[in-house]
């Protein structure tokens, strides 16, 4: 979920970044000159520093117990497990893990040679402390399912769950371990960990400087020092043009521009955009008084017609300048994705037939269909600060108009959307390496919970598949259930079944990368532009 932006703060940040960029340019100009003379003197031209402008700064700092490291590498900390480039779970801090037969107890054994960057050894105590702190913080990390975590001995930890949850493995893969002895109030601003890098300096709103952690147990990163600049995408693009950054994350509208000395890396992602339809008819209200449901979008014919009529390839080409792929589910291309959900789209004629069969007919010749006096018209809200979503909303609305469905695209702030999202269609973006996201979006239990399942979608068959997926003890077994929840041949939450969403596109994440910089192979990136690229940071080096 994108962060709610406070526009006011943003403006000042923008001004701040601008000043910073000027300063950086100035220092780089002088810095480069110095470096050249230096390398001429002793013949050593290998630069071991990188400057990256790859995304926004984490508002809450660098504390994994409050959410840092969910996207990309936690840099300073390391995790028990991690996903390799093919998204398989592999060991990191762990030597291995076991799951009890009832799926309730996860036992993880730790490496014994790991030290935090301050030289203190990492033990089971720290792991227990991290998970207890994360559970207590009530942050974005959902540890409700965790009953207790215990240290069996110095290097063995056991996690006991309240009920089986196969996706717990993902929590083990994204939660960086913090040191119990050094996890104070200012930890988020001065993190210490066992990751590949150690913290040097963070100037809020400006930059983060990190250096290699000499105590790191894994492969040492090639680059000794990395500076992350926090600047808007336009400024990052400008900086890339002048050659003052080695990697810049840029919006797709800049992707068509060639920049000398930089190459464009378009990395596949499940950072998807789609339309959430309220699934139930209007009438109810949430506890906070927001209206639930929509009489138009609760008609399956409307949702199905939109799903097959929208031309996803045209959206990718037109709105994303080709830097994207059509999206059919929330998890395209991931191991738990059901490839049967790919549908042929752009079928306007069939969509019209579906609508006519369902009784939607234009009785008053105003170009908009009616059914029992109800106009086929609904509002589609998008966060006004996001131009990609705006373009997708407007383009989709115009694409659907010829069917006789009038979609009114409206830009709102996240605060306003939070109030409107139960009764209006919303252009959301999701995409995670954790299948639990699917559960959250489509399970009847999460209806109305925050930004999850705001359409109050409910299908008992889908619920039961997803419950079984959580209860599964192996990933293969779980994945089979996840796939059935999407489409089992008869029902499911994909567009073949109930179609509570119309997924539109998966964005490709664009980075301008220094021509000489090798960034290794990239896995399919999750939601959140920028940081995910740091996942492979240890593999980065200069090309020979």
């Amino acid at each position, binding site marked *: 979920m994108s962060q709610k932006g406070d526009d006011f703060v*943003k*403006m000042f940040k923008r001004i701040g970044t601008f000043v910073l960029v000027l300063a950086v340019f100035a220092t780089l100009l002088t810095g480069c000159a110095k470096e050249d003379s230096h390398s001429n003197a002793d013949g050593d031209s290998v630069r071991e520093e990188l400057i990256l402008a790859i995304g926004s700064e984490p508002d809450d700092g660098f504390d994994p117990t409050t959410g840092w490291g969910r996207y990309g590498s936690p840099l300073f900390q390391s995790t028990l497990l991690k996903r390799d480039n093919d998204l398989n779970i592999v060991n990191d801090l762990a030597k291995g893990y076991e799951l009890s037969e009832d799926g309730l107890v996860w036992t993880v054994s730790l490496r014994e040679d790991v030290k935090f960057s301050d030289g203190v050894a990492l033990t089971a105590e720290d792991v227990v402390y991290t998970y207890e702190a994360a559970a207590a913080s009530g942050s974005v990390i959902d540890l409700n399912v965790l009953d207790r975590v215990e240290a069996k001995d110095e290097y063995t930890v056991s996690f006991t769950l309240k009920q089986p949850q196969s996706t717990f493995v993902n929590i083990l893969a994204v939660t960086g371990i913090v040191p119990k002895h050094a996890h104070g109030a200012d930890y988020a601003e001065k993190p210490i960990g066992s990751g590949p890098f150690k913290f040097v300096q963070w100037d809020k709103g400006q930059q983060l400087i990190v250096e290699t952690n000499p105590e790191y147990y894994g492969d040492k990163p090639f680059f000794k020092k990395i500076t992350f600049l926090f600047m808007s995408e336009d400024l990052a693009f400008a900086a890339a043009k002048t050659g003052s950054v080695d990697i810049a994350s840029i919006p797709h*509208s800049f992707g068509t521009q060639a920049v000398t000395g930089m190459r464009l890396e378009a990395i596949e992602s499940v950072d998807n955009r789609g339309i959430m339809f309220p699934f139930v008819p209007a009438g109810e209200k949430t506890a906070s008084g927001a209206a639930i449901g929509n009489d138009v979008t609760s008609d399956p014919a409307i949702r199905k017609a939109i799903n097959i009529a929208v031309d996803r390839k045209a959206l990718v080409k037109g709105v994303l300048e080709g830097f994207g792929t059509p999206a059919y589910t929330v998890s395209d291309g991931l191991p738990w994705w059901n490839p049967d959900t790919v549908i042929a789209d752009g079928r306007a004629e069939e969509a019209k037939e579906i609508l006519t069969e369902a009784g939607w007919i234009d009785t008053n010749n105003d170009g908009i269909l009616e059914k029992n006096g109800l106009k086929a018209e609904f509002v589609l809200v998008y966060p006004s600060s996001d131009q990609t979503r705006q*373009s997708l909303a*407007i383009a989709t609305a*115009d694409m659907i108009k010829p069917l006789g469905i009038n979609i009114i695209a409206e830009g709102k702030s996240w605060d306003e959307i939070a109030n409107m999202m139960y009764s209006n269609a919303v252009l959301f973006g999701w995409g995670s390496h954790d299948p639990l996201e699917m559960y959250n979006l489509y399970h009847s239990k999460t209806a109305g919970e925050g930004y999850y399942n705001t359409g109050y979608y409910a299908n008992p068959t889908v619920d039961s598949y997803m419950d079984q997926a959580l209860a599964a003890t192996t990933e293969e077994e779980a994945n089979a259930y996840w796939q059935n929840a999407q489409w089992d041949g008869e029902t499911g939450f994909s567009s073949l079944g109930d179609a509570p969403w119309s997924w539109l596109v998966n964005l490709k994440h664009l980075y301008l990368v220094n021509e000489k910089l090798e960034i290794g192979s990239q896995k399919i990136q999750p939601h959140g532009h920028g940081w995910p690229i740091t996942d492979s940071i240890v593999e980065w080096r200069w090309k020979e």
Partner: protein
Amino acid sequence: MINTTDTNTRPSSGILTMMGLNRRQRTIITTAVIGILLLSIILGGLLLSNERITTNLEARNQAPSFSHPFGTDWLGRDMLTRTIKGLTLSIFVGLIAAAISTIIALVLGIAAATMGNRVDTIVTWLVDLFMSIPHLVALILIAVALGGGMRGVVIGVALTHWPSLTRVVRGEVLQLRSTEYVQISRRMGKSRWWIAAQHIVPHLIPQMLVGLVLLFSHAILHEASITFLGFGLSPHQPAIGIILSESMRYLSVGMWWLAFFPGLSLLIIVRLFDILGDNLRKLMDPYNAHS
């Protein structure tokens, strides 16, 4: 805040002088021409169909051409149509805001001049206070406090543009009150309302009209500015500030026409309103009217 423009520097005046017209006639003609121009833009904005601003992904990012004089944007929408619609919305917002502002100025100005020293002090202090804060800052604060959107902008602009006109109104009323005919009416036992209606209001109407038109250009400009900065109208509204702020993202890609033509159009409209206001003042001001 009131710009005085010398009539002779106006480009149209050369031709009109050659046609043997005197200054008053020339002013009337320019005023009429400007009025018609502005009116046609408003009508254009209201009457133009939405067909040309539906997305047309095939025709996106086109440079200005014969079929799209202002080019097209990244969704293939015709920029000329968007600009005219945007200007119409801006004029509409400006009109409401300027009208509210004028009413505030009128009420406060008259109150200051007629309701005694204490009220006068308060109003003068308020005027000084508002004039000492930069318009844009006050405007942003008010618009943000009201949650942005159309309402925020209109109230924000209305609440920040009244001070100078209030001063003018206050001065005018003070001066009128001390004139002989008002003094005589009072001695003859006419009621306060009668004096206000018969003597004061007729003098204030021209001031108000001119003030309204001159406020107008400021209101439009400020509406566009705060919308541009992201505190104003929502991006789904076809406002000129939205068009300009959207175009910023595309400037570094070389799509200059997205900002150039709408910006130029805004400039021209604002300037036209300014000239219109100046002309109205000249026509109505007794010292200038007959020269």
